[in-house]
């Protein structure tokens, strides 16, 4: 633990003087270096949420469907038939900035183990990603590396990657944002909640041997900004072994199926320290840990290294002594090592032994649950008023709307992400009704007619301009995406990606984003069941855009009623649900065509959003819709084009509003969806829209080889598709 400078150890480990005092208070004495390292890991920003938890508490977390809320490895909701959907999102941005492929891969591994820890089979992955512009070599390296890492890991463990998003913006150049969401399925009554274990239960460490990987990973990487020479942090990046993870999945699920476990915990940030102290603290018990029993991969490891190692592909099981033989036999069958490394005891102490001596003894609760909480200073950034006032809606535009349309279609934010998702196995497990490239993914629940519908959404540009609105829009868009597939939104997980919480402007954006997310989740009836905060996404004094990302799950009661985004039949009516307003602030058009990232993001009326969601869900249930696709990035024009590409047929529409054509086509007004409907069902759909108060406009009809907007442009569908499909491959060289 030597450092180059002579600063006190606690500071070198990232603890403040006040935090050291708090530790002294909890112990009634000075901590020894091992204990200090344990506290440094557990009280790091990443593990303790010390800067965020006061704010996170304001989020709605309760609802009819919620089985497990925040504070666990993953949240869970009831989807009927005795089944639970378990889901969680996490960030692996810091490791990915240093070593994109391994960083992203181990992120997948970690989130999968979170879902596994609840006793659920991971059935889907979604990856929301953000990079700097692909015109820069380093960004292309990060982009290609992250995608390859996600694929390389996810494809080897047999969990399909069914969705996500990819966006590009200059502030993410030095700090890519790599989030990953995992969705799992389990019988509700068999969820592993870890509250059954009793004193005497054994701690069985299953899986990979422990090495020096990621020593101090959580405090080194995710709790500080990356400065020049970040390559020095490389030893903190873990190397993933997906084959070992696959074995862990199968072994742990077999153990859960056979009821052999009292609890199961992932070893993630802060490693064994975190898993053992959380397991004990949750039960109000203590724990004895025997470090000599931990299988090590390297010689000469210090106690603190064993305790905080973030070696991947390990799980900690709580096992009753009389079950140990059976449990270990299952591990052996799957070729996994297992070792009893401790046991639960009465009292609340976490006592760590090495070579017959106690090397650390601390209250488990103080490590796991009594970390500091900060209400950090917050204030809006300077210059905000000018940026908001510079509204692109009122900038004169005399360009050719057809050319502008192709420019927006070919913008990497809007362009097809096929280059990305073709590197992911979307099909394994045989449940994928709808994979990447649609509004939301749909996963069939075997043995029932039900399907889980899931999506991830973030609105970086909106959130930069207005973090409250940006976060609320990401919830609204996620709900709309789920509803476009015909499903009712159930609940939310989130990943809140921000710069340094020690910057008041960042803290202000964070607070605003949490407030916006809370308001939207309350209005749309989608409680937050957990998530992750990723701070310190900044380097050289420049932070990423505030990036609140939402992962939402919904339920489709009958998968045969799944609605897809592609036009289904020629001669259907093309209808816009919702109202188009003069709102180009923060739009893709404004950035790509006008070169402006400014203005106010579109307004968001959550009651309107709720009505649209209700309409889409009811219309799907009555099988009224030929297709449904949400209007978001790139506005109406892009929504129409994507429905045409997916359906393999064009459209002929007119714009029935008193708005300049470029505003009508590219405004990103909220609460809108493009649907197509058979003429004989249109009246019924219109009546439903009227009843729910959703604005309705018939724009034209589907069919033909052209994308035709009356009096504005007429483009060949295949030529437009080439622009949309070719943009990203063109930038990354195939």
């Amino acid at each position, binding site marked *: 633990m030597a450092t180059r400078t002579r600063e006190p150890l606690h500071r070198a480990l990232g603890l403040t003087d006040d935090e050291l005092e708090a530790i002294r208070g909890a112990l009634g004495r000075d901590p020894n270096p091992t204990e200090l390292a344990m506290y440094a890991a557990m009280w790091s920003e990443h593990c303790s949420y010390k800067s965020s938890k006061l704010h996170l508490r304001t989020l709605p977390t309760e609802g009819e469907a919620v089985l497990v809320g925040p504070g666990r490895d993953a949240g869970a909701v009831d989807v009927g038939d005795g089944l639970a959907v378990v889901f969680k999102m996490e960030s692996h941005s810091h490791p990915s900035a240093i070593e994109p492929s391994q960083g992203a891969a181990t992120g997948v591994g970690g989130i999968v183990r979170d879902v596994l820890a609840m006793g659920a089979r991971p059935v889907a992955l979604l990856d929301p990603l953000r990079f700097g512009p692909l015109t820069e070599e380093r960004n292309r390296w990060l982009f290609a590396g992250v995608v*390859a890492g996600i694929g*390389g890991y996810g494809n080897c463990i047999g969990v399909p990657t069914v969705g996500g998003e990819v966006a590009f913006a200059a502030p993410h150049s030095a700090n890519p944002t790599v989030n990953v969401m995992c969705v799992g399925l389990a019988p509700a009554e068999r969820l592993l909640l870890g509250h059954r274990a009793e004193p005497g239960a054994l701690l069985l460490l299953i899986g990979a041997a422990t090495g020096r990987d990621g020593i101090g990973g959580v405090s080194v990487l995710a709790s500080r900004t990356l400065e020049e020479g970040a390559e020095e942090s490389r030893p903190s990046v873990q190397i993933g*072994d*997906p*084959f070992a993870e696959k*074995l862990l999945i199968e072994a742990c699920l077999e153990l859960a199926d056979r009821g052999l476990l009292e609890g199961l915990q992932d070893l993630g940030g802060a490693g064994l320290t975190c898993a053992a102290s959380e397991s004990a603290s949750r039960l109000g018990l203590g724990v004895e840990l025997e470090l000599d029993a931990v299988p090590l991969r390297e010689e000469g490891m210090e106690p603190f290294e064993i305790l905080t190692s973030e070696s991947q592909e390990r799980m900690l099981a709580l096992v009753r002594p009389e079950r140990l033989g059976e449990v270990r036999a299952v591990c052996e069958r799957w070729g996994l090592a297992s070792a009893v490394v401790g046991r639960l005891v009465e009292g609340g102490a976490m006592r760590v032994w090495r070579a017959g001596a106690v090397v650390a003894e601390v209250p488990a609760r103080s490590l796991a649950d009594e970390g500091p909480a900060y209400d950090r200073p917050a204030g809006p950034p300077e210059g905000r008023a000018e940026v908001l006032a510079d509204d692109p809606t009122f900038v004169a535009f005399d360009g050719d709307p057809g050319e502008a349309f192709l420019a927006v279609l070919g913008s990497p934010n809007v362009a097809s992400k096929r280059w990305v998702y073709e590197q992911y196995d979307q*099909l*394994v497990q*045989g449940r994928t009704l709808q994979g990447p490239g649609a509004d939301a993914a749909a996963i069939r629940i075997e043995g029932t007619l039900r399907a889980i519908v899931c999506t991830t959404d973030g609105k970086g540009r909106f959130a930069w301009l207005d973090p409250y609105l940006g976060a609320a829009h990401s919830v609204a868009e996620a709900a709309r995406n789920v509803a476009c597939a015909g499903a009712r939104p159930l609940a939310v997980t989130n990943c809140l990606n921000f710069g340094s919480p020690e910057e008041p402007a960042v803290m202000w954006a964070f607070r605003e984003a949490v407030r916006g997310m809370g308001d939207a989740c309350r209005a749309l009836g989608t409680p937050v069941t957990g998530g992750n905060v990723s701070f310190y996404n900044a380097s050289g004094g420049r932070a990423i855009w505030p990036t609140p990302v939402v992962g939402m799950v919904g339920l489709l009661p009958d998968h*045969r009623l799944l609605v897809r985004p592609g036009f289904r039949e020629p001669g259907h009516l093309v209808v816009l649900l919702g109202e188009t307003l003069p709102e180009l602030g923060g739009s893709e058009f404004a950035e790509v065509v006008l070169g402006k990232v400014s203005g106010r993001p579109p307004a968001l009326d959550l009651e309107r959003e709720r009505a649209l969601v209700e309409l889409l869900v009811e219309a799907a249930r009555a099988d009224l819709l030929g297709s449904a696709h949400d209007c978001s990035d790139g506005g109406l024009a892009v929504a129409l084009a994507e429905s045409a590409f997916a359906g393999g047929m064009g459209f002929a529409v007119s714009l029935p509003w008193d708005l300049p054509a470029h505003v009508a086509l590219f405004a990103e007004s909220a609460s809108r969806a493009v649907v197509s409907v058979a003429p004989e069902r249109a009246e019924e759909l219109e009546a439903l829209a009227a009843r729910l108060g959703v604005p309705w406009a018939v724009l034209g009809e589907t069919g033909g080889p052209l994308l035709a907007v009356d009096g504005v442009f007429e483009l060949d569908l295949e030529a437009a598709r080439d622009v949309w499909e070719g943009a990203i491959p063109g930038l990354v060289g195939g």
Partner: protein
Amino acid sequence: MAGRSPRVGVVTFPGSLDDRDALRAVRFLGGEGVPLWHADPDLGGVDAVILPGGFSYGDYLRTGAIARFAPVMEEVRRFAERGGPVLGICNGFQILCEAGLLPGALARNVSLRFVCRWVHVRVETAASAITGELVPGEVLEVPVKHGEGRYVAAPGDLERIEAEGLVVLRYCGPGGELDDRFDPNGSAGHVAAVRNEAGNVVGLMPHPEHAVDPDLGPTGGQPLLASLLGRALARV
């Protein structure tokens, strides 16, 4: 018919991924799916064997390199020598090549990237365990998902494989036309599936088991697996 459905064994290696999917597909088509374990000393009297997709033992050295030495593979070899139908899908194809039960090998995709996409394949011969119910020239839509699916063979071998008619399927366009742009991995001769001389052992990179249920997409895998079941039934 003996009044029982064909029993098709699906071998699970520790890193198999599409084993449950293969079992489900067999059942979907009316067969009896029999799970087999890589350490099993026998095949449980099945009428056909599928080696499914996945990464058998992690495949860090080379796809299929370690799986070919699994205990169950000795039985698979004997079963194949007696004329039993054996189908290797994706990783299973790689294992059969490594084991020498099929000619050639599978190398890294020419793009160097994993690829998951729906492709078309053209039937080249009806004389194989998966094309008995098909006619040469027929085109099927099936998905591929692999990083190492580029079919290669030593110079000279390829000519022999072609000359002996061992190519079972080729990647093609929707109308059966051959072109590089329809080939997802850069295979020699656009080869998607090959057979042994007797036709009872077949390996293919596409995943027919993911193309049987109309709820999930196109159903080009149905006739391929139905042919396998038919061949298995003939042995009942």
